[in-house]
């Protein structure tokens, strides 16, 4: 466990009906091994359910895995659901999966800070989180 990641809480989920959950489970283990607290909602959840859980669990990071190709349809619904709850500024939003090169910039423009296509290393994601989660989160949770 590293000092920087000790207090970081991550919410992971798969949107839609997509069943490819190998990657998200690998990432969940990697984040846990990096000392983060991981909440994995499992598959077939809706953007609203993710946003509501992010609010209730007071997470620092929301990570979404989509390998169905539906990311350009579902991610805008998630950013809206986070905005509706006024927490879009408070969470670091990441997405991974089968994401073509051409979709990376539009996803950034939607407010998704981290985009990790298949083949990305777990260390790239954990490093990204440690670098980007705001300093205010480094105090121990009570």
């Amino acid at each position, binding site marked *: 466990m590293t000092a920087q990641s000790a207090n970081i809480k991550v919410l992971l989920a798969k949107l*839609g*009906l*997509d*069943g*490819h*959950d*190998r990657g*998200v*489970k*690998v990432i*969940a*283990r*990697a984040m846990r091994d990096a000392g983060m607290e*991981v909440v*994995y*909602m*499992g*598959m*077939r959840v*809706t953007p609203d359910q993710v946003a509501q859980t992010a609010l209730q669990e007071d997470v620092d990071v929301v990570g979404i895995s989509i390998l*169905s*190709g*539906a990311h*350009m*349809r*579902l991610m805008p619904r998630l950013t809206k659901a986070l905005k509706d709850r006024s927490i879009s500024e408070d969470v670091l939003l990441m997405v991974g999966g*089968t994401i*073509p090169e051409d979709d990376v910039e539009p996803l950034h423009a939607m407010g998704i800070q981290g985009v990790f*296509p*298949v*083949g990305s*290393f*777990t*260390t790239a994601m954990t490093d990204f989180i440690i670098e980007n989660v705001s300093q205010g989160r480094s105090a121990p949770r009570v």
Partner: protein
Amino acid sequence: MVDNKEQPKSSLSGLKVKPVYTPDDLVNMDFARDLGHPGEYPFTRGPYPDMYLGRLWTRRQIAGFGTAQATNERYRFLLDHGQNGISTDFDHPTLTGYDSDHELAEGEVGRLGVAIDSVRDMDELFLDIPLDEVSVSLTINHPAIVLLSMFLSVSEKRGVDWSRLRGTVQNDSLKEFHGQKTFALGPGPSLKLTTDIVEFCTQHVPNWYTISISGYHIRESGSDAVQELAFTIAQGMAYVESALERGLPVDSFSPRLSFFFGCHNDVFEEVAKYRAARRMWARIMKDRYKASRPESMRLRFHTQTLGSTLMRQDPQNNIARGTLQALAAVLGGTQSLHVSGYDEAFDIPSEEAMRMSLATQLILSHESGVTSTVDPLAGSYFIESMTNDMEEAAWDYINRLEAMGSGQFPMKTGMLSAIDTGYIELEIARAAYEYQLRIESGEQVIVGLNQYQSESNQKLELFEFDPEEEEWQKGRLAETRGGRSAADVKSTLSSLKQAARDNKNLMPPVLEAVGALATEGEILDTMREVYGEYVDPGVF
């Protein structure tokens, strides 16, 4: 840099590999007992005496996207380019038993497979394709009973007798809880539906393959080869026990069970896996389940090269990976083959990628010479040792699963229990994570990813998905709902519900409902009302 001097070596799945093998490695082996001749018990060397000399493997590239009409065009393209079997890939809403207008279906209608809502779509999917000549594989699991009923209904309408259909329905419900994850119902009810199909087809569709017992998805979920072999054989045993419990004689249904494996990069380990699978299944069927027909004992399988081995970096390297994997499958004696498209790390394959996959198969068939003799690697000190090691390691898992069960059918109860506790899923997740760590540390070299990266940034012509097709499909669904007798739908669904409550075989009432134009989602909803909905436990 990684050099080649590290010791000791092991296979991709961690089986020990010695620098040199000699006859001393096979002193305990009895060739008549452990190998036999091709086409003879224990079928280690292959299910048929002449193998590819008699008939080449079936080139069966899976396809499905968008609407039934779009996929039908792809099928005809593939048939024109050397394919001789059809394999249908359904979209996620279809795989999980939801109609195209369901909330969770948004963005996924027709996206990774073809969208099928009613028997009208199934009819369109096989337009102008002779169902009694081309063998069709329906890649569907928990809603298999619905899609198979639609297919049978279309056949009947075209005057094709059910006894002339030679296709396959995947119908492997148990693997859905740890591989593929397109479940609709819980483990118990979905196993009941699987067994309903086995029972119905044994009586009414005698040449249909009732279950394609699948290791492929387990491997794609990150398992190693030993786990793939062990869990697949264990699933097969659970299905046999479930059918025996139903009262079916073992030799009545077992000849129509087939298998489906993945193929990874470690060539000899893969060959050993296929050979071990055949020997294990033959002995299990004969010794444990007392089968007497050779057809009940001989394992036949389809292979798909693994999409998870395909890289975004230097995608044309994936053609080499696909070729190696296809070679291993052929050396292992596969009955049919799908070579994954080199562009599948980006999207579903383009037509060009599928043409290349078919060409890979044709080059193996006609240029490589590997089809000239049966089971060419038999007798290799290394291959036979690896086959023995693979079998032994797989039995460790199967024995553990059996110990989780009880009563007269311990593999059936053991598998259900191992699914409930998450044991299988966690074992696979552990293997997937360890493999990823080996890649990230550089211990496992992946060319172009963690070593030998290239500067070239070549742009591929990817599959173009038409987002309009989702709306079109929803329109067609509304049209189907508008043009049918609501009373017929209601009464057939209510009969189905009653049959489910009475624990009857659900094939007959589902056939009725399909004929009344009830949609897949409506039929599955009826079942969910009786059996409950399964929710992903989210273990990692």
